[in-house]
């Protein structure tokens, strides 16, 4: 198995491969390695959208070898938060990188004209992308599929117009329906004139002991498929949480003004599954297949004339463009999701930005003059569609501000107390209690997935956890996810990859680790990420929590600022800061 770093310099039009065994040995792979490469490659204080800012992709030692270890991590300096940018995507990218023989890819510099990168094993070509510049992310995928080789084992990742226009929460679409969504990798691509990257390869991976490999494989496959640990994902999917969180008073509604939504029953996972779901597909080498695809059939003329669109959905999308915008029409919601997909922009950030804008419009902080006559009103789908067009088109200062994220927009127009971001990142769809808030503040990429505070809240709601216990649970997740994200597994398979099973799987391919090794690695990775964050100016003490978090009831009742303060203090103490 090849474990190498591929370097590509877009400015110099050069590429080369380096064997960096020591790096992979010390940091395992995935996010462990990506963080080191980012520290090496990214000059301190650099403008995230300048040629000097690098893009790193990494997979880990188990990718493509074991079921549900399907993700690739990217590390970059986030144009949205100005510090650590990190995002994960599934699809076929991890498998394609494995077979191309590169566990990490470093992209330096910027191209002088629209370009895309085509990688086949060690062969790297930087090709002209002028003809596809400006084309939406979905269509450009179809186009590259026709002109590039490697059918069946390649991966195609690309940006849409949002990335080209440097919308700070633009994402990168991976194959079909997977994304590097958060923190603005799409804008970094755009700043480099990089429209897409296509990768495939033919490395024949050998394992040291095929018998042992098969045995461990069988065990893990059986747990994933034949037990109930992953049931939730292949049945209704993550969107099952719409009804659940609505009942628990944790579903952010109308920009977090409420946590239960009277329209939830119309946009629940059950409704999508019964009325719209037409297919589920899978990331490469995942037997679960949680990618839920809805068929949206809209009539565009009498005489039974229909447009058919295929739109993937998940919990976060339904929250961000649904309950958070008061949208209760499932078809309209799918249209909004599809607009973001074509433009290539992060749905969570878009939903939070629009939620803030709607409230600001209600409160007359902004007027039709700013919105260019677009009515920003709850549940007004046409209005939201137009607003999304304008965020990408940026016809005036107001929409250009929206394209910079909710923090900057509220700096300029007011309404900071209801600008729902933590540490600059628009928040995920859980108003469950203090652990969710604290978790997103301290998390390395300010994501709900850093430490799953929302799930700690739900546990706490059942059996009364003390602040110390919640903080300890956050720290435990922070660190252990650093290890899992170095593999790089799908977080939905956390129940399959227990510590023992991770050790077994690594052992089966000749990487011997103990529990202590992994615990230590998790801590070190976390510290290294914080080294980067601090270097770029991040300071927990400066984080302001918008008042709205304390004004709306959560699953755990009202949260008071003191609880959050106390937990942050305990957190710092536990971390020895």
């Amino acid at each position, binding site marked *: 198995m090849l474990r190498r770093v591929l370097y590509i310099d877009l400015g110099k039009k050069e590429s080369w491969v380096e064997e960096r065994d020591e790096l992979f040995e010390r940091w395992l792979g995935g996010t462990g390695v990506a963080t080191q490469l980012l520290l090496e490659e990214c000059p301190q204080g650099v403008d995230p959208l300048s040629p000097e800012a690098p893009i790193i992709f990494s997979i880990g030692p188990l990718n*493509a070898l074991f079921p549900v270890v399907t993700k690739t991590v990217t590390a970059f300096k986030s144009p949205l938060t100005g510090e650590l940018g990190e995002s994960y995507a599934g699809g076929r990218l991890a498998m394609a990188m494995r077979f191309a023989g590169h566990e990490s890819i470093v992209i330096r510099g910027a191209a002088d004209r629209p370009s895309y990168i085509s990688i086949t094993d060690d062969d790297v070509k930087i090709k002209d992308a002028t003809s596809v510049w400006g084309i939406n992310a979905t269509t450009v995928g179809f186009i590259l599929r026709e002109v590039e080789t490697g059918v069946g084992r390649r991966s195609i990742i690309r940006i849409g117009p949002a990335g080209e226009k440097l919308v700070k929460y633009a994402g990168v679409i991976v194959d*079909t329906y997977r994304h590097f969504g958060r923190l603005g990798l799409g804008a970094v691509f755009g700043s480099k004139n990089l429209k897409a990257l296509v990768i495939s390869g033919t490395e024949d*991976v*050998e*394992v040291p002991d095929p018998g042992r490999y098969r045995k461990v494989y069988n065990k893990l496959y059986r747990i994933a498929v034949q037990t109930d640990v992953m049931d939730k994902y292949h049945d209704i999917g993550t969107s099952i949480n719409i009804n659940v969180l609505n009942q628990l008073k944790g579903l952010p509604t109308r920009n977090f003004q409420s946590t239960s939504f009277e329209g939830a029953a119309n946009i629940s996972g059950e409704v999508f599954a019964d009325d719209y779901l037409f297919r589920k*597909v899978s990331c490469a080498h995942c037997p*679960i297949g949680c990618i839920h695809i809805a068929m949206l059939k809209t009539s565009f003329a009498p005489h039974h004339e229909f447009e058919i669109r295929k739109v993937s959905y998940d919990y976060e999308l339904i929250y961000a463009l649904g309950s958070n915008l008061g949208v209760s029409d499932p078809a309209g919601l799918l249209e909004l999701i599809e607009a973001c997909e074509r433009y290539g922009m992060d749905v969570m950030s878009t939903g939070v930005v629009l939620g803030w804008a709607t409230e600001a419009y209600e409160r007359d902080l902004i007027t039709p003059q700013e919105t260019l006559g677009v009515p920003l009103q709850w549940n007004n789908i046409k209005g939201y569609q137009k607003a999304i067009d304008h965020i990408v088109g940026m016809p005036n200062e107001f929409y250009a501000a929206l394209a910079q994220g909710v923090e900057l927009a509220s700096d300029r127009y007011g309404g900071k107390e209801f600008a729902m971001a933590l540490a600059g990142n628009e928040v995920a769809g859980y108003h469950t209690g203090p652990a969710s808030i604290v978790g997103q503040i301290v998390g390395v990429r300010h994501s709900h997935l850093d430490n799953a505070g929302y799930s700690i809240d739900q546990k706490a709601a059942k059996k009364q956890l003390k602040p110390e216990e919640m903080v300890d649970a956050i720290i435990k997740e922070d660190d252990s996810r650093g290890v899992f994200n170095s593999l790089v597994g799908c977080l939905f398979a956390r129940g399959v990859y227990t510590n023992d099973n991770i050790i077994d799987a690594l052992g089966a391919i000749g990487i011997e680790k103990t529990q202590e090794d992994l615990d230590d690695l998790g801590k070190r990775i976390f510290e290294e990420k914080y080294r980067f964050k601090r270097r770029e100016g991040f300071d927990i003490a400066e984080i302001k929590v918008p008042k709205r978090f304390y004004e709306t009831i959560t699953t755990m009742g009202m949260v008071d600022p003191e609880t959050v303060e106390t937990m942050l203090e305990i957190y710092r103490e536990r971390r020895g800061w």
Partner: protein
Amino acid sequence: MHRLKVAHPERCIGCLSCMFACSRINTGHVSLDRSAIKIKTQGGIEGDFVVVVCHACRDPPCVKACPTGALERRDDGNVVFHEDLCNGCGECVDVCLIGAISLDGDEKAVKCRHCGACVAFCPHDVLELEEVPALGGSDAQKSSVH
């Protein structure tokens, strides 16, 4: 004898577990190129998946096309592959219109043995291993006229 059958292609989720199973179990490698079953997409992931498997032809054209005798039809109808005899000419690949045969990275033909290893790893019951009556050599010749 057994034959691998694509019983429910509509149920395929494109996970490739079957391809990894085939190469893992039959060759000990982790590889798509060494898999005898092939999952293709028709118009990308949002289109339909196509599951390509060996049809177990009664009068197999691949055997006829092979100039070295690497593909040999046994009297019971099973086709066996002698890897050492394969010279990588690709005649078998061209003659199988289904696309069930390919060449791996070592330029050797990859041909399904109808062993059923992939069946056990398909999470969606797309594949089945079915029992088909064994054939005598001459019967097979006759039945293949149709």
